């Protein structure tokens, strides 16, 4: 079995398949015509808050959002 089979260039550079796939999808979305482009970018907006836990309690959450002010 070839465990040293030719790896794709992105994996050789340290990227995972999921990053590669998401980069490709973003590039395609950026090349869309107008109403479709706005819909696609709107669809892909994310909003989440992360908090690290220490000693059984959550610390101050970090908010990451594409819709500022929410």
């Amino acid at each position: 079995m070839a465990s040293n089979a030719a790896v794709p260039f992105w994996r050789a550079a340290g990227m995972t398949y999921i990053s590669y796939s998401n980069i490709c999808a973003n590039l395609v979305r950026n090349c869309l015509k107008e109403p479709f482009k706005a819909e696609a970018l709107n669809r892909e907006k994310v909003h989440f808050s992360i908090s690290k836990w220490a000693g059984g309690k959550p610390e101050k959450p970090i908010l990451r959002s594409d819709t500022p002010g929410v």
Partner: protein
Amino acid sequence: MFRQTSRLLSRSIAAASSKSATTRAFSTELPSTVDSTFIESWKKVAPNIDPPQTPSSYMKPRPSIASSIPTKLTVNFVLPYTSELAGKEVDMVIIPATTGQMGVLPGHVPTIAELKPGMMSVHEGTDVKKYFVSSGFAFLHANSVADIIAVEAVPLENIDPSQVQKGLAEFTQKLASATTDLEKAEAQIGVEVHSAMNAALSG
């Protein structure tokens, strides 16, 4: 593996009768005396015994293979946010696999194909619907069902050619000026995706 079985079956008995139990690996409480009548009759029968079967040889293949090749291919084309085609019966799809454009007809051999950025076309009679797929996978099953999954797929009409040209120029320039491996990889991805879009729009 099972071709060797009859040789191994006879060999294990020969080894047992020539060495004592203490020199065999993995034998702890086995009796040290061997029954010679058993060994003789086993030696007679061993070369003629079929090797043992595995559970999978008793199972029917899933999904069940139709006795005759179906006339239509059933396509399920899904994206994360929508089911573009759900159980649609078509004549043929051409998918952009990493190994090249692959034509899928009913009765195609079961395959799992990784897709590269490229054009996918769905042929139904004289209608051809074309999509540009960013990347994904295609699972072709034995019962002529094709599951194609993509992260982003757009009909070709929705792509803006001027943006594609601009992106291609930008990434070609980035590729030339990239320093780290990661930058080079990202620029290369950009060049590949934009060239594929260009080719799809013009081809």
